[in-house]
């Protein structure tokens, strides 16, 4: 019995370790935190940002496994939705940038000066797709 418990503990610890390491590695490649620090000029706070990510991930795990109920007013969700959305949007942008999409595209179609318009196409497409999905698509 003890062996079984130890084994399960070990496996849980091992999978948690690899998932956590993978998440942080992914976040590092996309360069979201450096970008936010650069925009806000808060390079010195980097350790706090690291902890924010770690605590956030643990809070997510807790919420997922324990199903707590907080009973807070619903308008808090606007703030949570906005921040969560900004994070996913930055991740998407970081991924696009890591894949070198824009430089190649702009070069190919001679649009060096109007690259903002292309970015706006993708941004608006994402907003439209997301709203369309939640308001209409998922209820069909």
């Amino acid at each position, binding site marked *: 019995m003890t062996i079984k418990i130890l084994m399960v503990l070990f496996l849980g610890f091992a999978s948690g370790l690899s998932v956590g390491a993978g998440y942080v590695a992914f976040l590092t490649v996309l*360069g979201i935190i450096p970008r936010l620090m650069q925009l806000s000029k808060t390079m010195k706070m980097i350790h706090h940002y690291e902890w924010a990510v770690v605590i956030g991930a643990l809070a997510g795990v807790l919420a997922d496994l324990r199903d707590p109920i907080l009973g807070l007013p619903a308008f808090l969700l606007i703030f949570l939705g906005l921040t969560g959305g900004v994070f996913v949007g930055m991740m998407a942008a970081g991924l696009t*940038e890591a894949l070198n999409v824009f430089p190649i*595209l702009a070069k190919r179609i001679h*649009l060096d000066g109007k690259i903002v318009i292309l970015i706006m196409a993708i941004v608006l497409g994402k*907003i439209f797709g*997301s709203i369309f999905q939640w308001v209409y698509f998922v209820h069909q």
Partner: protein
Amino acid sequence: MWEVNVLEKTIYIRMRHRLHISSDENVILKDAAQIIAPESVLKKIENLKIHQLTEADGNIVIIDVMKVIKQITEELGDFEVQTIGPPQTIIEVVTKKKGASMPFFLLIWFLLFFGSAMTLMNFHDDVSMKSVQEKIYTIITGEKDEKPLLFQISYSIGLGLGMILFFNHVFKKRINDEPSPLEVEMFNYQMDLDNYVILHENKESMKHVHDD
């Protein structure tokens, strides 16, 4: 006395990295390089024709500094040429500026628009975003809601905001002087292209001795 003599006989050239020129012009040294030379020969060197553009050149020509030195010594003879900086100039021949055609542009715009919309919907479906959002709604408010629109709409707007924030186009005026990641990416891509053409368009940069 001798040192003064040497100094007076030295020409310093620094090749520019890139030169844009229209197809009917000749390439003169003043355009392709920065020059420091004794007053007596400066005018002559500045207007030295170093390349005649032809149809066969295509739109990228590499001028090697060796070619320039050869022409200067042929022209002036007894001068010492010192080179500083990049060993070649990339000459980009600009033919008539062709703007992107409007229908083509609109097509690509819509392609990006719909493509990213669809990709995002697939992503949401893939990671079961709907059930997660409903769960978050229940955690916060204690109620069940099939349509937590309050959360979903603000999430959608935040999504676009995050992308804009990443590429730093919120304010036309820059937040700070640092280039945005996209500008750095464009620059790196251009540098890679430049390195490629420097090696491949310049016949002198590679030599096969044993050609069997």
